């Protein structure tokens, strides 16, 4: 069916009082969270299902979403994790022979409230200038005062701990149980394709809930530990920092991605901070200081590792930096086989430039455990 011009109105209200009017799509309702934008032009389904976006109201800066529908393979978790979606155009009809349905139906199924026909470029400029802030979308009321009230109840991302709510309830495994490499994974909101990257490299992984004590992790007899990505403020996760410290004491190889990177920094006494508006997209330039090579990376983070403390740290060295703003993108410990990156080497969506890091981790494990 051609696009219906008389669609339901919707409102987007920002914490600073700025109001945008648009059209509703997805579920009719009201939803709030922290406003952020991504500049990625492909992979919307992977983005919407990435657990690190939990609690985020996401602006897609690219002109269209939904053009190629959705399918069952391009997901990073079993649900849609974003709190709400803001875009310029959502395709009412899609075209992809291997798609299983339309994006709009998919969002409806997952109860996601969205607003389209918004000047997303103006909105991105607003966030770029004013910084990350909370917002609310509603397609069920035009009572702005009532929305303001509801917006005040939306919690601030700073100091918010989310991982323990979205982590797996029970441990589960992936890969071949007879594999020679076993990796214990701490789940703070892990993306499926990180696990794929391990199992593709013939590792057997066991994924544990966020608050699993070290003894239980050790019972799996892992050759290495992986600390996952996830949403929320790493400064509010003392329990996780303590587990990372326990893991480091084991002396086994350890790899962390995104939140896992921030936790490794904290375990070494390096604080994290809330960024102005974060890094989200598929085109972030990173330089590997060890090899001198550059990589285009997928990023999704609103918190960062304090650069001065990282530079002054005796325990770690900076291995990767962002070429746009000089922020810390990767660290490794000087006297322990542990390293981490702020970006997403598994990409999905995004470039495969950084997948060598998974090889590096596997090599580290093989070397230490004398496997193969």
């Amino acid at each position, binding site marked *: 069916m051609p696009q219906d011009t008389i669609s339901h109105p919707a409102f987007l209200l920002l914490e600073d009082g700025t109001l945008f009017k648009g059209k509703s799509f997805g579920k009719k309702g009201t939803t709030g969270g922290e406003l952020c934008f991504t*500049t990625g032009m492909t992979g919307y389904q992977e983005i919407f299902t990435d657990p690190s976006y939990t609690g985020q109201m996401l602006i897609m800066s690219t002109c269209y979403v939904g053009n190629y529908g959705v399918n069952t393979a391009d997901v990073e978790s079993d649900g849609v994790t974003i709190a709400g979606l803001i875009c310029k*155009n959502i395709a009412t009809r899609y075209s992809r022979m291997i798609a299983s349905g339309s994006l709009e139906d998919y969002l409806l199924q997952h109860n996601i409230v969205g607003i389209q026909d918004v*000047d997303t470029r103006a*909105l991105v400029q607003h966030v770029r200038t004013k910084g990350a802030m909370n917002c609310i979308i509603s397609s069920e009321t035009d009572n702005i005062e009532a929305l303001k009230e509801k917006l005040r109840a939306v919690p601030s991302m700073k100091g918010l701990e989310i991982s323990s709510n979205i982590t797996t309830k029970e441990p589960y495994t992936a890969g071949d149980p007879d594999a020679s490499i076993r990796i214990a994974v701490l789940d703070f909101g892990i993306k499926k394709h990180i696990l794929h990257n391990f199992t593709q490299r013939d590792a057997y992984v066991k994924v544990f809930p966020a608050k699993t004590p070290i003894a239980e992790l050790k019972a799996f007899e892992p050759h290495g530990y992986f600390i996952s990505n996830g949403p929320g403020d790493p400064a509010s996760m003392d329990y996780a920092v303590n587990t990372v410290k326990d893991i480091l004491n084991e002396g086994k190889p350890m790899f962390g991605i995104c939140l896992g990177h921030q936790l490794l920094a904290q375990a070494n006494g390096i604080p994290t901070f809330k960024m102005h508006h974060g890094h989200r997209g598929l085109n972030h330039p990173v330089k590997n200081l060890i090899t*001198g090579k550059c990589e*285009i990376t997928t990023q999704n983070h609103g918190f960062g590792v304090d650069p001065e403390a990282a530079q002054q740290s005796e325990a770690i060295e900076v291995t990767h930096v962002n070429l746009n703003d000089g922020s810390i993108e990767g660290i490794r410990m000087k006297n322990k086989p542990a390293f981490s990156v702020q970006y997403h080497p598994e990409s*999905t969506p*995004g*470039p495969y430039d950084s997948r060598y890091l998974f090889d590096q981790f596997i090599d580290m494990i093989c070397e230490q455990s004398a496997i193969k």
Partner: protein
Amino acid sequence: MHIEPKRRRERPVSGAFSSDTGGNGRPENSVRRFRIRLQLSEILVTFAGRTGALPPDCLSTIYRNAMPLDTSIKSVLIIGSGPIVIGQACEFDYSGSQAARSLREEGIKVTLINSNPATIMTDPLVADRVYLLPLTAESIEQILEENEIDAVLPTMGGQTALNLAKEVEELGLWEKYKVRLIGVDIKAIDKAEDRDLFRNWMLEMNIPVAPARVANSMLEGKEYAQEIGIPLVIRPSFTLGGTGGGFVKSKEELEPALEAGLKASPIHEVLVEKAVLGWKEFELELLRDVNDNVVIICTVENFDPMGIHTGDSITVAPAMTLSDTAFQLMRNTAIDMMRNLGNFAGGCNVQFALNPETEEIIAIEINPRVSRSSALASKATGYPIAKVAAKLAIGYTLDELKNQITQTTSAYFEPALDYVIVKMPRWNFDKFKGADDTLGLQMKSVGEVMAIGRTFPEALQKACQSLENNATGLTSISRSQMRPEELIDYLKRPTWDRIFRIKEALQAGISIKTIRELTQIDRWFLYQIQDLVALEQKIQAYQHLDKLPVDLLKEAKQMGFSDEQIAELVKDCTAEEVYEKRKAAGITRVFKMVDTCSAEFEARTPYFYSTFETASQSS
């Protein structure tokens, strides 16, 4: 003959030194390196306060791997593309001029050869010395005789310049005059240009290509045709611009096509190749530096499927119907191809076909140079490909250069677009009476327009409005109305006015399914045109401008309708009246930037396009 600039313009003073023609002002290596570091430390210091950047004292770590500039290059020869012909037009003037400017910024003396004086690049202000000479090895030798040239940059003048560089190489002239080839690997030229070498190279790399076999006789041709299966493309060897080649879509067409092909080839040889008609076509623009860092500047999707020359296709950026999985497969393959092709720093263009049913891809071609599409990609993204490619050719690495638009972020990144680009070719068949206006393997358009919008229909209609053929949008531009049966028959053959006829067909109620079968154009694009038809019908129903709701008028503007088009639809008013009505309702143009980064960073030197967008209100 050569032209010496009348007034020798002073070169831009960069950093700690000022260079002059004699080359005596060239900086020492250390000075240059200091300058680069200084610029970079400025960037980092700027950011330190805002985002918590790295302290400047760790700069030595960051840049310890930076390759020094090749300071032995003080004078560069750029080869132009010669006469403007169909398929090789002003885009190479654009890239040549950009490259000349980019090298002179570095204090390098630029000498230019082109046989075409009607270009910007031959303007005395663009290069230090301009030679208006035929593009032959003799001319090159004359230039090398008269000037001290350190290096030649042959990647800015299309295939013409590359072929000339290769010819001169074979004559041993570059070696004789101690001139280095920069921006290209001479061994890569053949591998990219020769169909057979390209196929074998792809097979070596395990990259799929269309199945094909070389036949030297009718009998062989028939045998291979049987083996590969119809549809086929018959490509005669060693003919210019695809002459004598053709499609075989039915058994009956095979024999005449083989006969024509074999006859056209001077060595009686044809390539019998599987035609991937109906597959989707994509193009990627790449840049690579001496450290082997590669970025994709732009991905372009062809509205027209495989079988129509890219130069004759309507193209769209960013890709509209490409999933991330399919895109990353192309990105990885393109990067592997560029790295494997040879040892060179500069620009490159790779084309792929994608099977819409399985999403498998095959490589179509690779151009180890700045191409027609790079000029479009530069304008579409704001990233100056030729300018940066010239810097990479003299040894800069991407991470040492800044994004030209933001001037603060890195040139090592991949542009993100928050608008839609539509390129439409412009044909002039009315000036070539009797010419076959069927579009196919050989490019026939004489120019192109590029339009920008925040919706695909907006960009498409703006492009139509810019064609200078009386189209006020995607409207009927022909006086002859066709009946539905005639339209169905007409759409079987790709012609220059196909998109206009598709709209007529949708108006006549012909289904998307039928049009898709006839044209093989992706449904997503057909849906967009159908949306335009539906909107037109809605507007038409009001019949009076007074009664036309403001919301609908706004939607029409966002879908790219011109005031004239709207007036034609409601019939009781003029374009001026439509303008007055929408102005009174506050529906006026806003201007948005082409800034390479979707507004993520502040832009210093962007350019603008107009659109109709809702602004925010404060409460």
